[in-house]
């Protein structure tokens, strides 16, 4: 390294030394190129008038035509509203319930039952949304579902055609989503609580603090950074949604689109059902750009308050 070689031969040596390391990275980067970077450049499709007989590159430019079409429909507003409102509901419910449960879970001393609860709680997170779709169907099916045949008569409400009436879904989806994802968030807050400094509590007990006071004045304030971080990260993803939750669970029922259609499902249907590449790509572009701005903004805030948790 230290020799008196000329600069160029030193560089040669350096390249030779690191060549095997660069070689190792090749498969990974080829994958990122195909799976991530090419589609990013592919976003220009939104400004094109795609004609598959000519090919993507040779197709003419459309300017903002695709966007004009998209934003002149009622759909643009509905999917944006649904995506954001559902995400806000999911995030809020998730925060409150997860923190509550994590604190309670920490109060359980027997490690055996605590382990069992954790295992069960995480179960829904492990199964695919298709299976969740079947589970919900077993409850909500019009003719034979558990709700209509058992709970309805029991509590005296009439049969409801769940998959046809959109007004119920803003309540059904948050419940199903909570059911599926709560275990994940509980584990995050639970591990954060375990990591808290015990000596604070010991001091509090000596001073005669009640359990409620300990939670109110020690646990919650100490958890605040984790809550804020998680909130920010989720806010950064507010323009995206879990496709399966909005496609499988309402069983893709057209009658429900007004309350179940989100940007992701809209793009899918426009592209693969209707074959409307222009509309689909305009909506996709809109999601990618706004989504990117939100991620970057939230990340800048995170970097301010907790640099080691920032993505960049």
């Amino acid at each position: 390294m230290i020799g008196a070689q000329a600069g160029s031969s030193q560089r040669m040596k350096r390249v030779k030394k690191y060549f095997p390391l660069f070689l190792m990275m090749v498969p990974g980067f080829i994958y990122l190129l195909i799976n991530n970077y090419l589609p990013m450049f592919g976003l220009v499709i939104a400004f094109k008038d795609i004609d598959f007989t000519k090919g993507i590159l040779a197709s003419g430019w459309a300017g903002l035509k695709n966007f004009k079409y998209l934003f002149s429909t009622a759909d643009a507003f509905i999917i944006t509203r649904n995506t954001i409102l559902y995400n806000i509901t999911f995030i809020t419910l998730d925060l409150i319930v997860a923190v509550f449960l994590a604190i309670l879970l920490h109060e359980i001393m027997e490690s055996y039952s605590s382990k069992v609860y954790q295992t069960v709680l995480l179960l829904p997170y492990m199964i695919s949304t298709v299976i969740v779709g079947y589970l919900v169907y077993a409850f909500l099916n019009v003719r034979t579902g558990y709700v209509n045949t058992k709970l309805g008569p029991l509590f005296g409400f009439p049969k409801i055609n769940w998959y046809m009436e959109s007004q119920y879904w803003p309540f059904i989806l948050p419940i199903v989503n909570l059911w599926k994802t709560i275990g994940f968030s509980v584990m995050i807050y639970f591990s954060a609580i375990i990591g808290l400094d015990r000596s604070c509590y010991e001091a509090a007990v000596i001073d005669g603090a009640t359990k409620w006071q300990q939670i109110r004045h020690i646990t919650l304030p100490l958890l605040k950074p984790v809550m804020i971080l998680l909130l920010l990260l989720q806010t950064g993803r507010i323009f995206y949604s879990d496709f399966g939750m909005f496609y499988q669970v309402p069983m893709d029922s057209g009658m429900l689109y007004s309350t179940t259609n989100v940007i992701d499902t809209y793009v899918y249907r426009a592209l693969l059902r209707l074959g409307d590449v222009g509309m689909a790509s305009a909506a996709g572009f809109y999601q990618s750009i706004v989504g990117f701005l939100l991620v970057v903004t939230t990340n800048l805030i995170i970097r301010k308050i907790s640099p080691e948790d920032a993505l960049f």
Partner: protein
Amino acid sequence: MSKHLKSKPLMFFSHIVFIALCLAIILPFLLLISSSVTSEEALVVHGYNFIPKQFSLEAYEYLWRHSSQLFRAYGITLLVTGVGTLTSLVITSMLAYPLSRYDLPGRRVFTFLIVFTMLFNGGLVPTYLIYVRLFGIKNTLWALIVPGLLMNGFHVMLTRTFFQKNIPPAVIESAQCDGATEFQIYRKIILPLSLPIMATIGLMTAIRYWNDWYNGMIYLNDPQLYSLQVMLNEMLMNIRFLSDTNLGGAAMGAVRIPGTSVRMAIAVVGALPIISIYPFFQKYFVQGITLGSVKE
């Protein structure tokens, strides 16, 4: 000391809350299993029930008699999960290891190229068009393995950080002094030391492959290539179609096969492996959650 920090009534309350919660999670599965062992007639007449009104294994017998497609789908799921997870671990660790080396030239640029994929993506339309038009992935097994699932920046960054924290540079330097090549170092030193992170990431990836129906729905229409979840997805969409167009009880006889109980049986068969295996790997799974806790 820590005993004094706990309170009895609160603990009692916690148990009640968690028992109720566990019931809320387990009961839907019970309903699914119970309806898969109920006779089709009882299901139509009495609806779904937690305790079978009329116990019958006809759904499973039906599956057994028509098992060739089911076994095929199972085989494809296993193949895709196995090949995908292994490939993923290899390329993820091979990308993460050089990045963990502080002496690697251009390290910051490479790292940025990976992090950027976590911030920005092209979305479904260009991804679909590139895979279908450029790579001709439609109706091939590649469609179940490659798009979206094979590697992600998040796992690369987790692995890189693990290497940086757990493998002392001195170990690598002394191996270099002994004349080991970089590939030898990767295989003989890095991989054996990275078992915990490989287990965590491998598990997360395997579950994603096992549960994936999205790629199949988008890129496949040849039933011969359907994995279990893709098959389940197709059937779920068909049930609604049948029940929407059904003119009432009269038509039920005509569409008896495959009946509701059969579909529920397939869902049980599809969910069971994960449900039964996962408690044993829970440790790694929880590790994965808390590791990346916050960075997803």
